[in-house]
């Protein structure tokens, strides 16, 4: 797909980049990325993917915008309170870049529908806010063989890992199973500094772009952690776990039947 004159201007700073140029920009415009969760992480993900000219952005979120979201969920503004998050984000994306088509999924993603939703996309971003969802997305992406960028944030901390199913360590290789409900501090319990999901979500969007462009090194077989207080990034190298219950040598998990909760 060739770029028109307006696109050559809009994406000129991408086109100048070695490894992107017009061919890479065309690839971004033809790509399809799914963002599951449109909150603190999902907002910067959606906005940067839109600015980048990712041709189709799918957004999954069943919620409406709440006043307490606005401190960090930068895709949503004060007049959006009460509006569906998928519609609020779609409006910002469309205003930012008319090249981008937005597909909204105002649904709870669960075992019954998630594989169908992710099947139509090239890359999946886990921007959800609970462990059940993170494991569900990991498992669904494994069964559908969809590349995924996982992230989590709380307090002044964030973490991220990219997963190429069947090739690199998956979320269960490292974390095995969701912790019991209410045993781990979450943002609603202990808070989160607004820019922390901004930093991590921006990195997730960067991983998606690198994957689509086929450039650089992805955060695979590793967990990247960010501490805003110390201003420190750490990359913990982790290989695939041969005992992994999902992608190990003798997997116990054969389908999504173990999931009850939705995301």
């Amino acid at each position, binding site marked *: 797909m060739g770029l028109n004159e307006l696109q050559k201007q809009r994406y000129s700073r991408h086109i100048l980049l070695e490894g992107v140029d017009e061919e890479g920009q065309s690839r971004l415009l033809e790509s399809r990325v799914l963002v599951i969760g449109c909150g603190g992480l999902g907002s910067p993900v959606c906005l940067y993917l839109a600015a980048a000219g990712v041709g189709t952005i799918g957004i999954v979120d069943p919620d409406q915008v709440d006043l307490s979201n606005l401190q960090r969920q930068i895709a949503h503004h004060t007049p959006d309170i009460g509006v569906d998050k998928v519609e609020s984000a779609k409006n910002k994306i469309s205003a930012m870049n008319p090249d981008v088509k937005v597909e909204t999924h105002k649904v709870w993603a669960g075992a019954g529908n998630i594989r169908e939703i992710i099947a139509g996309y090239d890359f999946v971003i886990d921007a959800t806010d609970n462990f059940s969802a993170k494991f569900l997305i990991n498992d669904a992406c494994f069964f559908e063989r969809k590349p995924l960028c996982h992230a989590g944030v709380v307090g002044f901390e964030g973490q991220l890992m990219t997963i190429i199913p069947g090739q690199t360590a998956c979320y269960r290789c490292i974390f095995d199973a969701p*912790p019991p409900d209410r045993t781990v501090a979450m943002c609603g319990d202990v808070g989160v500094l607004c820019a922390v999901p901004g930093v991590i979500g921006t990195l997730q969007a960067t991983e998606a772009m690198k994957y689509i462009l086929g450039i650089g090194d992805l955060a695979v077989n590793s967990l990247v952690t960010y501490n805003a207080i110390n201003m420190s990034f750490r990359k913990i190298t982790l290989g695939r776990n041969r005992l992994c219950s999902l992608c190990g040598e003798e997997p116990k998990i054969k389908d999504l039947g173990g999931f009850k909760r939705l995301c």
Partner: protein
Amino acid sequence: MLLEIRLFATFRHRRFKTKQMELPVGFLLGNLLKKLDISIKNVGILLVNGKHSDKETRLIDGDVVAIFPVVGGG
């Protein structure tokens, strides 16, 4: 034996960031978690001298133990 314990993210809350601890040789990593009042279910990654370890790992003098929680918000 003397160990260095490094806690990360929410595990630092009401505990510490880095601490030297004197414990018997061969002390189990799982028992260290109990001593720190950290549930294994909340642990994301256990590293001993930078290597992925588990609760059955026996610690030796000079080990540096790093304990990361799972982080699930968004």
